[in-house]
């Protein structure tokens, strides 16, 4: 069986600045994998390349299970079943909470399904239901993060790309978010998670990649990664928690 998502030899450049140098990574159905690395390592860029938002200079991206998607426009890639929780939430701040959810199901034409998913999201995030008529920009940071996750789930993706979901949240909320990652995964969604919060990420992931300067410098089970010198050098050493 081939991987759900498989990235091989990915190179990405912003103009003359080459930032991703031949990255390989993959994720199988049902897994949670973490992509760890310091600021500027290229984590967000890799996610955007998978989503088709930045052009890959070289390499293959296969999703789902062997279908080549590199070069497809982002909306076509999304339609194959990839959800995205962008870095810094990025809710549509001038749209209502409800409209943000509807945007998540943009290509679902069965209104019954859309309503059903909205109900599911209200169950998963009760706070969102109470705020549904509000402008999303008026939500607190934590609420916006929940909305960003709910919005991504509205398309019922098979793979969820999460970019630093715990960024800027209070410790209790950070715990909640990682708990949520588990819950979502148990519902059958595979997750590729980018995190600065390496300790927590390694607790929920079953495999992790370590990115440094656009190169994968290590990969393995959480235990292997935690014990590697690479992570101490590149990453955890600088973390307070």
């Amino acid at each position, binding site marked *: 069986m081939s991987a759900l998502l498989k990235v091989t030899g990915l190179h990405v450049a912003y103009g003359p600045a080459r930032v991703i140098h031949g990255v390989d990574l993959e994720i199988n159905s049902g897994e949670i994998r973490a992509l760890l690395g310091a600021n500027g390592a290229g984590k967000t860029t890799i996610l955007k390349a998978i989503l088709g938002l930045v052009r890959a200079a070289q390499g293959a991206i296969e999703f789902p299970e062997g279908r080549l998607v590199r070069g497809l426009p982002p909306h076509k890639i999304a339609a194959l079943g990839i959800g995205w929780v962008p870095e810094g939430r990025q809710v549509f701040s001038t749209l209502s909470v409800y409209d943000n959810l509807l945007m998540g199901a*943009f290509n679902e034409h069965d209104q019954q399904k859309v309503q059903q998913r909205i109900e599911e999201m209200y169950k998963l995030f009760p706070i969102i239901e109470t705020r549904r008529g509000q402008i999303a920009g008026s939500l607190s940071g934590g609420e916006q993060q929940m909305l960003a996750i709910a919005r991504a789930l509205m398309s019922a993706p098979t793979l969820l790309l999460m970019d630093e979901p715990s960024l800027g949240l209070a410790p209790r909320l950070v715990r909640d978010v990682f708990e949520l990652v588990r819950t979502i995964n148990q519902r059958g969604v595979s997750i590729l998670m980018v995190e600065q919060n390496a300790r927590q990420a390694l607790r929920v992931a079953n495999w992790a990649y370590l990115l440094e300067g656009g190169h994968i410098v290590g990969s393995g089970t959480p235990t292997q990664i935690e014990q590697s010198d690479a992570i101490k050098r590149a990453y955890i050493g600088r973390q307070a928690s």
Partner: protein
Amino acid sequence: MEQFFQQVVNGVMVGSSYAIVALGFGLTFSVMHVLNLAHPETAMVGAFAAFVVATLFTTNLLVVIPLAVLAALLAGLLIERLAIRPTRGRHILTSFIATGGLSIVMQNGAQRIFGVDPVRVAVQVEGVQTVGGVIASNMQLMTFGLAVAMMVGARYYVRNTRWGRATRAVSEKHEVAQALGVDINRVSQLTVGLSTAMAGAAGVSLALLHSQATPFMGAIFGTKSFVCMLVAGNRHIEGIMFVGILLGVLEALVAGYISASLRDMVAFGILVLVLYLRPAGIFGSYEHD
């Protein structure tokens, strides 16, 4: 007093046309982040389409107006494909050059085809309405109604439809919208199409009110509408509509009470004043994200 109200009425009629051109300018800018300098030329296309239809086929307004709007819309889609889509996401000057170039091509193309002199658009609508001594011709009222219908339609589309919602999403965070499944090229087409259809409606209105069309009519008209957008800010449809109509009224008052030759200066006077006092426009900001 009667004369005052008469000027106000005249101003509202013209201003509603400024408003729908400005609305299109603002819509295209806030969604695609491109300043479409060829936008006013689509009003000119609408005016000449009205001339062609009225001269060759029929003066029935139910045919003339839709065909003129359609012509402007098609011109808009061509502009979108040639100058807006390829320049999206690049430096704003790139789109300036591309759409500015097209604008020159369109003006000179029209001049080649129709000549420098104004052509006569011979469509009559008989009758006037009088309320307390203030007169509005049925033609004025008809073009005003058309502008209002366009504004209401645009507002409904943006607020209440699926693609309208996607349009607002793209305007705010286009990458996220795309990753949620929105085809940004479709949004681009819809936005520019709607914007230029409105400009076309304004163009045919002007052609009908003045009974003429000229190749360079887009220039001054477009500049004034552009001023409306700058003055209003690009956040609120209502704001742009309000400023458009206000400009029409001020112009009519200046022309009526001071001198008709000062009319075209009003817009620029207001622009200087507003940009000095509130650089982001009266109703909102030019910033994104």
